[in-house]
């Protein structure tokens, strides 16, 4: 007879999609609010977006219990940093902290697919994209989660600078205005909702710019 495989898994996937787009002086971070398990919906109003520092906001899809544990850990480390350095952590610093935290659990990973957005020390938008064990890269835009395979090609088409093989490498941030970027994010989620069963219900959009943080919501399909 075939060997009996373990049929208990410590992980579950609560689904959902996240997107972040960096602009010249703003950053847009968005995620849907549906939390699911298998074919069931657990709740239609769960926020996947967490403010880690004044200028760093993280959106995470995957296993929300691990995401919560990760957010708690990062918040504690940020508090320590504030006590020791008397200032908030910058976005690139938070990006490296997140990467190190994820790699620390290399052999029992956080099942969290993160995308970190914010403003760097010069006030320009920055987006960092991660895998589950902490490999990260600064990019101009990114998406993670169940709908990322549907969203990423469209963002590549609209935002990607031409191949670096052809022209000198262009600046990573998009030349779009803030309202155009928000419009793009809304369209991208409406489309991903049509075809991905785990994405839907409501879209939460967070915009970081020199004036601070601004949050808005948009209804998505609920089926």
């Amino acid at each position, binding site marked *: 007879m075939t060997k009996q495989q373990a049929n208990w898994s410590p992980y579950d996937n609560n689904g959902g999609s996240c997107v972040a787009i960096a602009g010249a002086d703003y950053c847009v971070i968005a995620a849907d609010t549906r939390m699911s398990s298998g074919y069931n919906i657990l709740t239609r109003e769960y926020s996947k977006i967490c403010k880690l520092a004044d200028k760093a906001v993280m959106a995470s899809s995957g296993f929300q219990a691990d995401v919560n544990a990760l957010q708690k850990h990062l918040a504690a480390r940020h508090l320590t940093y504030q006590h020791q350095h008397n200032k908030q952590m910058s976005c690139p610093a938070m990006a490296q902290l997140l990467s190190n935290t994820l790699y620390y659990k290399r052999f029992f990973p956080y099942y969290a697919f993160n995308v970190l957005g914010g403003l760097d020390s010069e006030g320009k938008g920055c987006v960092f994209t991660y895998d589950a064990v902490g490999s990260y890269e600064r990019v101009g835009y990114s998406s993670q989660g169940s709908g990322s395979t549907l969203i990423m090609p469209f963002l590549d088409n*609209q935002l990607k600078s031409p*191949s670096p*093989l052809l022209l000198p490498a262009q600046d990573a941030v998009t030349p779009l205005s803030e309202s155009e970027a928000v419009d793009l994010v809304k*369209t991208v989620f*409406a489309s991903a909702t*049509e075809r991905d069963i785990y994405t839907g219900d409501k879209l939460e959009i967070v915009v970081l710019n020199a004036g601070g943080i601004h949050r808005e919501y*948009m*209804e998505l399909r609920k*089926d």
Partner: protein
Amino acid sequence: MSQVAVEAPPKGGFSFDLCRRNGMLSKNGVPPPSYRKTGTTIVGLIFQDGVILGADTRATEGPIVCDKNCEKIHYMAPNIYCCGAGTAADTEAVTDMVSSQLQLHRYHTGRESRVVTALTLLKSHLFKYQGHVQAALVLGGVDANGPHLHTIYPHGSTDTLPFATMGSGSLAAMSVFESKYREGLTKEEGIKLVCEAICSGIFNDLGSGSNVDVCVITKGQKEYLRNHQLPNPRTYVSSKGFSFPKKTEVLLTRITPLKEMVEVIEGGDTMEE
């Protein structure tokens, strides 16, 4: 939910798969194809004048919606319709096959088809294939013996019921039926209840979605209400539209002639007649 391409646990007995071909394909990086299932909500109920069938319209391939508006209520006979859940190819094939057999039988007997005939043909076929034909059906119709409603499971067992639900959304729909069904519903009440049950599946089950199809069968008449309700319009359409100015980038051009260049000389030798 774990992602598996083909969800059958290895069983005993001889494997009739094309093992060498499958091995070669997987070695070359071609994943085994997944089945397209209609993760579904289908329902049926008996009302005072006949039978009402209902279905959602979403077809899924794993977590992706492959058809937003497919038809799950299949024609069997002028007085019999069948909703199908499970593997889409199986439900289509088995309902088409039995529909043809029923038509031949009608020519042979000169009479209107009976629901129990369709039922027996379907269940014998499914039992013969021991559950490998993954079709879960809700069969309903009105014949000389009155209205009938049956459920048929992939292994070939059947139930005869006053109201029934099948598919991944069956629990969501059954909760509506169990709360609100009563005998002797009118046509309007029956359609409303069927729509409520399907909507419950559409909104609470991730495998079901999009629109509601309804089919009302009474003595001597049927009404197929395709897209009777459309509760899921697209939520956001960008007002400014999108342009796609970037053509595919040409990174490298290399022309390799496959044959020698042939020169055509005008006024060469003419062919002999």
